[in-house]
């Protein structure tokens, strides 16, 4: 399969990339890891006239924590960088759990977290993780930078809030209010398959009390679902069998699964509750990660 014809540019500065995108308008596409865009172009589901490859932009492959604990993930940070990150392993349990579950090891060498957020696939794993952590995307365009909360960033399946001349330069995870706990669980039929069900749970705790909770669901709706009622059932409480059960059932209620070749709606809804319960039970038993 061949993509349809397009013009290709690989600029060396963000400013030049933005200028090219502005000139290309709606018919231009950013190319990052290419692990979603290239397959779509081969299938002719995407047929941009201009492809702006951002892989030559310098200084975007970082992921690092500010002194206050805010985590920043550059647009060229690959899934594999995050999978092997000591920083995440020590400070970001939800992200560390999700990274090895994205796609397969070879795809992870190329694909990026920011590209995954931009792609806005309802079955993309990172969107749930970043949503559960209260994260945001920093976009850069002709008028400079703006920060877009993840809650607003995805506007529909495969649609995001970026203007045609904007590049997502980084994703930001705010510093924790307390200690972080959490996890990501994904049901997949085989390695490299998209989620039948994915659940991200991110907690920030002070002592035994949950100060902030985020729960988000992958693959059980037309886009990533923030299970706000489930998170609210935990906030201000300690993790008890009752609060865990309440969160699990609220999350299952928030899911909007459809019956398909991956499973029945009923089964998927049940798995949402099971995963929420499993992650929270593990959180209540394990020591929290160092605050970050």
């Amino acid at each position: 399969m061949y993509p349809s014809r397009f013009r290709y540019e690989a600029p060396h500065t963000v400013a030049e990339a933005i200028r090219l995108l502005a000139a290309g308008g709606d018919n231009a596409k950013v190319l990052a890891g290419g692990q979603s865009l290239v397959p779509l172009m081969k299938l002719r589901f995407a047929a941009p006239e201009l492809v702006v490859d951002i892989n030559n932009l310098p200084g975007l492959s970082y992921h690092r924590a500010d002194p206050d604990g805010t985590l920043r993930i550059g647009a060229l940070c690959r899934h594999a960088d995050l999978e092997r990150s000591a920083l995440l392993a020590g400070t970001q349990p939800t992200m560390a759990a999700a990274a090895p579950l994205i796609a397969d090891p070879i795809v992870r060498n190329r694909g990026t977290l920011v590209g995954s957020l931009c792609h806005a696939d309802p079955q993309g794993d990172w969107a749930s993780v970043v949503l559960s952590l209260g994260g945001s995307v920093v976009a850069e365009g002709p008028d400079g930078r703006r920060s877009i909360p993840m809650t607003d960033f995805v506007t529909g399946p495969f649609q995001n809030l970026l203007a045609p001349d904007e590049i997502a330069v980084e994703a930001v995870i705010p510093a924790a209010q307390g200690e972080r706990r959490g996890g990501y669980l994904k049901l997949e039929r085989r390695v490299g398959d998209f989620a039948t069900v994915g659940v991200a749970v991110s907690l920030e705790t002070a002592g035994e009390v949950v100060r902030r909770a985020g729960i988000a669901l992958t693959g059980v709706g037309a886009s990533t679902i923030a299970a706000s009622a489930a998170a609210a059932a935990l906030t201000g409480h300690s993790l008890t069998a009752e609060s865990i059960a309440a969160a699990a059932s609220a999350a299952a209620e928030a899911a909007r699964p459809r019956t398909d070749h991956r499973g029945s709606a009923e089964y998927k809804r049940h798995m949402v509750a099971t995963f929420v319960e499993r992650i929270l039970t593990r959180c209540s038993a394990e020591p929290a990660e160092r605050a970050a």
Partner: protein
Amino acid sequence: MKVTLTVNGTEYARDVEPRLLLIHLLRDELGLTGSHWGCDTSNCGACVVWLDDTPVKSCTVLAVMADGHRVLTVEGLANGASLDPVQQGFAHCHGLQCGFCTPGMMLTARWLLNNNPHPSSYQVREAISGQVCRCTGYENIVKAVLWAAEYEAGG
């Protein structure tokens, strides 16, 4: 578009369409048919090559993205006449049958051993989990990689 890339240590310059995929540049333009074109949907890993220092699925990389970069294919794995230990492992342990998946498997195995010289069999399975073999049932591929690890450790 003009691209210059180094494949297995040799520099090549070609004029290509931006929509040409790396797998087709390697096979059709450079005549390096060791890398296989399998599923064409980013799933099977028969097309795995190294781009700089990491294995990638070359059916999911534009050839122009390799401009200025290094590529390693199975043709570059042996050191002159002496096979790479990974290749020897596949021969010793019967790690292939039809051989279609083998070049990609060996390139991933080489990368794994460079980064983790003493992998567990679980780690080998995890490393090749994005690649499909329809013949061996994977058992002998895992054995081949572990054989190479042991060989390199002086066993």
